[in-house]
């Protein structure tokens, strides 16, 4: 995800957040394992670069540790800016099961540059799994 990591833009984002840097060890990977069952969750924005101040959609792909798609999962989306004590400005949700372990998340909006968390809770047959993604958004 080059858009999040280009150093110059990262610096801009940090300045815009008033020198409130994201923690240095922040894992910015958009493909992560959930806890406790190690489901592979992969998210990607459907609009790039990720826009500020605009509603947009993401796609989520879920697969088991051995690579099988996780279908029929019930997913809730949460998140916010940990450094600013505010949540997401909207309440995104899964609006479509795209099949084959893929899900459409609509209603995502980021109101400012900086460090954002996207938290997913995934309810499957074995209980609830959780995963948190980190994004650092530059000024677009």
């Amino acid at each position: 995800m080059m858009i999040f990591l280009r150093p110059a833009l990262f610096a801009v984002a940090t300045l815009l957040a008033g020198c409130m840097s994201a923690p240095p060890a922040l894992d910015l990977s958009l493909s992560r394992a959930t806890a406790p069952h190690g489901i592979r969750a992969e998210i990607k924005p459907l609009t790039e670069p990720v826009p500020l101040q605009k509603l947009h959609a993401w796609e989520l792909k879920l697969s088991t540790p051995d690579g099988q798609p996780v279908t029929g999962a019930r997913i809730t989306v949460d998140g916010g800016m940990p450094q600013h004590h505010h949540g997401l400005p909207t309440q995104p949700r899964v609006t479509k099961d795209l099949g084959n372990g893929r899900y459409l998340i609509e209603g995502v909006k980021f109101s400012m540059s900086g460090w954002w968390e996207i938290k997913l809770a995934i309810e499957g047959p074995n209980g609830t799994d959780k995963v948190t993604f980190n994004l650092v958004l530059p000024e677009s």
Partner: protein
Amino acid sequence: MRRYLGSALAAAACVAASLVMAGGGTEWSAAERAVLATLRLNQLPPAPADPSNRVATLPAAATLGKRLFFDRRLSSNGAVSCASCHDPQLQFQDGKAVAQGVGTGIRRTMPIGSAGHTPFLFWDGRKDSLWAQAVGPLEDAAEHGGNRLAFAHLMRAHYRQDYESVFGKLPDLEGLPADAGPLGTAAQQEAWQALAPERRSEVSRVLANIGKAIAAYERTLHHGETRLDRYIGAVLDGDPAAGDILSAAEIQGLRIFIGKGRCVTCHNGPLLSDQQFHNTGIAPHGPAEQALGRRSGAAKVLRDEFNCLGPYSDARPEQCGELQFLAADGPTLEGAFKAPSLRGVALRPPYMHAGQLAGLDAVIAHYRAAPPARYGRSELRPVALSGEEAQYLRAFLLSLDGAIVERER
């Protein structure tokens, strides 16, 4: 590996910014210039379309809306128009801590300018379009104190031709009482309930259309360029005369604004506002429900009959994304109020949602201290500014004057 590099560079940029500031210089780093570029007014795109108002950009609707905006007959005592509180000479606000209509309001009048850019209106975001906002005060007991049947009669008596050329035929009001509305006095509410549902719907539609015409006018009100915009333009062009546009103190204040003051975190973009709701620990005003801010505003907009999904909206449900995906829950809504645009801020004390802070000195002192919130939790952390830096920041904020200009786009 790359992320560590990114953070290291970011930290270096912060250090560099502080060093430049400490030296009192007027040079801007590449990263700072990139931030400055985002604040220029010419970076503001046209206001997004409002699919809930099919006449939002119709000139005839704006012309009608302008007449309605200044018409004092749209009030219970014949003395209050929209312009009574939204005074064109004062950036379309009134300079008072709380609004004064036919009664005394509960919040600070918000200025009007580039208002088509915000998805939610009012300090608590209880309306989701300019037109839905406009109908609120008309029926509010403390503001215009009117009722929707009286407004419909008024449109027939004084605006029939102009109304009908924009919206089509006015309903026949023959035999209906002079006053009736769901939010009025007990007698007006009783008269409203006595009307057949289809009559109520027709009359409500007239009120919605009054709002849509006023919204079309309000969409023509834009922020004018200020010295800040000219200064940033000159900096980006490498024009050595930039230093003549803002004073040295104002430039230092701008550096604090985008740097250690962290003002730009929420007051970002060309309107110097992220258009979101934040708890900044401002002392509550009024009863608890009112003090909850966005918490109660979110609940209100969801049940508002004039919202994007309601019967008087021209939008299809899938065009109502902001409402469909509204965040109506979570602890961060409590005590949160809209971050207003800072354009023109120098000219409109007192500050905050009920004018709680008299001047910019008090505002800066509040952000330096970051007191805890009485409702919810403040997002602020104390900002460590010296007395001199606070004065620089004040000087910069005082440079944000500028007029509101009327133009079609």
